[in-house]
C-alpha cells in the first residue's frame, strides 16, 4: 500500500501543479492530518466559538433573552469606556505593572540560570534550585498574606530589620503607599516566580554543546567570556520567543496579585483592567460593558504581539509567526 503510493507520486510528480502536489502530500500524510483533527476542533471550540460572545458588547445584553431579542446599541459601550477616567487609570496601571514585571521577569531568571549553571557543586545547585522554585506552588492568597504580614508596621519583619539597623526611625506603612505598590507587586512576583522561570533557561543552556566551551577554553576564553560569547547567544532564541509571547500577554496580567495585595488607599495604583472589568462590568451585572473592556484587551494584545514579532524579525531574524 505504502510502496504503491510512493511510486505513483514519484512517477506523476513532474506533471503536477502546485495545488495537486499539496493534495497528494496531504493524502500521503493523511494519518497525521487525522491525528491533528481533535486538536483543531479543540482550539475551535474553546478559542474561536467564544468569540461569538463578543456580539454582546454591541447589544444592551439582557440574560435569558434570545440573540434576536437583544437591543443593538452599536459602539455605545466603547464610547462610554473611552470617556471614563478610571479606565485610563486602569490601563496605565496594567501597562506599568506588566512592563516592570516583564523586565524583572526576564533579567533576573536569566541571571540566576547562568549563575546556577556555573556552580560546580551539584548538591548546592540542587538545593538552591529547589528552594527558589518552591514559592511558585504557593497560591497568591497565601503569598499575599505572607507579604502583607512581612511589610506590616505591627511587628513586620521588614520594618523591624530597617528600624533595628537604624535606617529609618518610624516603621514605614508599605502597603498604604500608592507609589510603592507597583514595586511591591513586581518584587513579590520575582520572589514567587524567579525559580520557576529559571528552569526553562537551564534546560536551554543544557542543550548547548560542550565542544563549544572546550574550543573556547582552548582559545583562552575566561569564564565570563564563555558566558558572554557562548551561553547567552546559545539561549538567545529561547529568550526571544518567550519575550514575544509575554508581550502578547502584556495587557492581560490578571488581577489576583493586585486584588489580594491592594486596598482602598492604593486603589489608584492597584486597579488593573481585569479588576476594572470585574468591578464595573460583571460585578454590576453590566455584561455588555465587561465584554467591551475585554474586546479592547484582546485587540491591544494582538497588536502588541504582531508589533513585537515584527520588530524582532527585523532585528534578529527570529520570530514565532
Amino acid at each position, binding site marked *: 500500500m505504502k510502496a504503491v503510493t510512493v511510486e505513483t507520486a514519484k512517477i506523476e510528480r513532474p506533471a503536477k501543479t502546485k495545488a495537486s502536489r499539496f493534495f497528494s502530500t496531504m493524502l500521503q500524510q493523511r494519518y497525521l492530518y487525522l491525528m491533528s483533527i481533535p486538536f483543531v476542533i479543540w482550539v475551535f471550540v474553546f478559542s474561536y466559538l467564544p468569540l461569538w460572545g463578543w456580539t454582546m458588547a454591541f447589544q444592551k445584553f439582557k*440574560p435569558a433573552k434570545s440573540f434576536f431579542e437583544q437591543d443593538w446599541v452599536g459602539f455605545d459601550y466603547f464610547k462610554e469606556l473611552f470617556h471614563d477616567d478610571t479606565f485610563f487609570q486602569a490601563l496605565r496601571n496594567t501597562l506599568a505593572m506588566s512592563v516592570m514585571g516583564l523586565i524583572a521577569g526576564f533579567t533576573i531568571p536569566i541571571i540566576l540560570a547562568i549563575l546556577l549553571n556555573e556552580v560546580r557543586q551539584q548538591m548546592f545547585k540542587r538545593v538552591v534550585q529547589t528552594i527558589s522554585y518552591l514559592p511558585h506552588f504557593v497560591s497568591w492568597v497565601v503569598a499575599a*498574606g505572607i507579604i502583607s*504580614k512581612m511589610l506590616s508596621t505591627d511587628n513586620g519583619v521588614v520594618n523591624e530589620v530597617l528600624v533595628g539597623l537604624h535606617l529609618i526611625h518610624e516603621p514605614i506603612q508599605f502597603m498604604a503607599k500608592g507609589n510603592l505598590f507597583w514595586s511591591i507587586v513586581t518584587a513579590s512576583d520575582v520572589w514567587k516566580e524567579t525559580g520557576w522561570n529559571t528552569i526553562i533557561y537551564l534546560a536551554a543552556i543544557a542543550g548547548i554543546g560542550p565542544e563549544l566551551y572546550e574550543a573556547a577554553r582552548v582559545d583562552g576564553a575566561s569564564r565570563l567570556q564563555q558566558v558572554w560569547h557562548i551561553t547567552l547567544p546559545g539561549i538567545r532564541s529561547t529568550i526571544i520567543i518567550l519575550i514575544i509571547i509575554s508581550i502578547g500577554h502584556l495587557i492581560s496580567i490578571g488581577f489576583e496579585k493586585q486584588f489580594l495585595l491592594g486596598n482602598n488607599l492604593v486603589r489608584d495604583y492597584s486597579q488593573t483592567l481585569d479588576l476594572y472589568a470585574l468591578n464595573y462590568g460583571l460585578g454590576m*451585572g453590566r455584561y455588555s460593558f465587561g465584554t467591551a473592556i475585554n474586546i479592547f484587551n484582546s485587540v491591544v494584545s494582538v497588536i502588541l504581539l504582531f508589533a513585537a514579532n515584527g520588530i524582532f524579525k527585523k532585528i534578529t531574524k527570529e520570530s514565532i509567526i
Partner: protein
Amino acid sequence: MQRKKTTASVLMSVTLLAGLLAGCGSSNNDTSNNEANKSNNSATANSGNTASNDANANKDAAAAEDTSPITFSFFAEDPNPNWNNMQDDVSKELTKKTGVTLDAEFAVGDPAQKVALMATSGEYPDLISAKGDIGKLVDAGAVIDLTDLIDKYAPNIKRVLGDNLARAKYTNADQSIYAIPTWAAVNEQRFVAGGGFELQHRVVKEAGYPEIRTVQDYESVIKSYIEKHPTDENGNKNIGVSLNADDWHMYISVTNPAVSTTGGSDDGEYYIDQTTNEAIYHFRRPEEKEYFRWLNHMNDIGLLDKESFVQKYDQYKSKVATGRVLGLIDQDWDYNDAQQALKTAGKFDETYGHYPVTMSKDIKQADFWPTGFMGGYGISISSTCKDPVRAIKFLDYLASDEFQILNNWGIEGKHYKIEDGKRVVPQEVQDRINNDNTAFTKESGIGFYWNMMVHYGDGAKDESGNYYTKNFPEQLVNGYSDAEKETLAAYKATTWKDLFPKEDEFKVKAYGAAWNIQIPGEDEVSILGTKMKDITWKRIPQAILAKPADFDKIWDEYMADLDKAGVKKMEADYTKYVQDRVALWSGN
C-alpha cells in the same frame, strides 16, 4: 472537578432511591421521577410516615405530606462557616420531617459577582438567597413569581407574614413576589444591641465606669488606659481602636458609624429626610465631616490602628483575638469569631461591651429606630427548580412553629427542656454555647436556617407563651459572661440595649430601610453608586490618615470629586426609588 463528580453521584443515587420508593423503577430520569412523585404522591413513601405525621398533627400537619428523599441545591449570599453539610442535629431532624436534603453553597468572597455569573450561565440552584442582587436574577428570568405557590401551598408562611406579605412585592411596576422575605423578622422587639461603639470590659473598669456617651468619652477612656498599659503581658503594643476596612466591611466599620454618631439610622449610603423622603448621599452632610475629623484626630494622637485601612478581614479578626485591641467600631456579628476566640481562651475582660456613642450628648443614637417589617432580602425558587411545589412546601415547613423552635432552640431533651411549661436551656448546654460556640454550632446546627425561613423575631411568643427565639432578656443575660455582667451592673443595666435610646423615641420609617430597596443593575443609580463608592473608599481613608492641617483640603477635594461624578443626579434618582417604595407599601 472531583467534588462535582461526588455531588453528581450523590444526586444520582438519591434520584435512584427516590425512584425505588415511588415504585417506578422503570425510569431513572430526574424529571419523570419528580413528576411521578408529584402525581402519585408516592403512596409507599407516604404510608410509612402517616403515623408520625399524625403524632405531630397540629396546624403544621400540612408541612410535609410528601417526604420522599429529594435534594435541593441552594445558594446563599451570606457565608456560613459552620455549615456541616446537613450532618448536624437540626438538619437531620429537618431531613427526617421533609425528606429534603440541601446541597448548599455559601458565598465566599464577593457574592454579587457570583450571582451575576449565575444569572448569565443559566444554571441556577433550586433555591437562591440573593439578598440585594435579586434584581439580576429577576432580569434573567431566573426566579419565579411565588404569589400563587404561596397562596396554594404555604399556609404557614401566610399565617406568619399576614399583611406583611404585601411588602414582599418586587416593584410598583412588577408586583410579583420573587423572594419570600426571610431576613426581616415578624413582630420583632429587638433586645440585642450589637452595634454602637465597643470597649473592652477591662478598659471601662479601669476608668471606673464613666458614662460613655460621646466620642470624647470614648476617646478619653482608651487614652487613659493605653497610657497606663502601653503593652500587653508579652510586650506587644496595645492598640487603641482598630477599624475593619476590608472591602464591604468598610460600610460596617467606617462609613455607617458616621451616620449613627450623627443621629441618622441605617439607610445604606443615603440619609433620608423623614418628612420629604428625599435622599442625600450621607457623606455630604456637614455633621459627618466632623465625625471623620475626629477619626483623623484619633489617628493623629496614635490611638487609631495604623493598619486599619491596609489589613484584610482575617488579619483584623486575628488581631482582635489577641485581646490587644481596646476599642472597636463595628457590629458584633462582624467581630464575633474573634470574640469567641477570646472567650475560649478565658480572656473575658478583653471581650467587648456596646455603647451608644454619638458626636455630642444632644444627638440620639438611632440604632433602635423602628423600621416596621422590612420585607426585602429573602429566598427565591429558581425557574429550573426540579419541583417548585416540594420546594415551597419545604419553605413552608421552615416557617412552621415546630421548625422555628427547632432552629432557634434545638432538639427538645437535648438542647433544651421544658420546665413548668417554659423552655429552658440546661446549664451544661449553655456553658458550651458560651465557651465552645463554634463546635457546638457545628454539631447542633442551631440557627443555620434563620435566614432561610420566614420567622418571628425576638420577643414574639408562641401559643405556649414561650418566646420563639432565645434572645429575650432573661435568656440573654444567661449568655453573658461574668465580666459582661459586672460591667452592665456598674452601668445599672441588665442588657446592652438598656444603654441605647428606645424604639418609642422615634417615628416608624415609612419605607422600612433604604438599604434594602431593589435597584436594577443597569440603572444609572447603580453605576453612579459604584463610582461614588470608589471615590469615597479612597478619599475617606486619605482624609483620616492625613495630617490634621490637611484634613479640610482633602475633604473639599472629596466633595468636589463627588460633584464632578454626578452625585446630585444620583440623589435625585434615588429619591424616586424611596418615594416609590413608600407608595408601594402604603398602597395596600
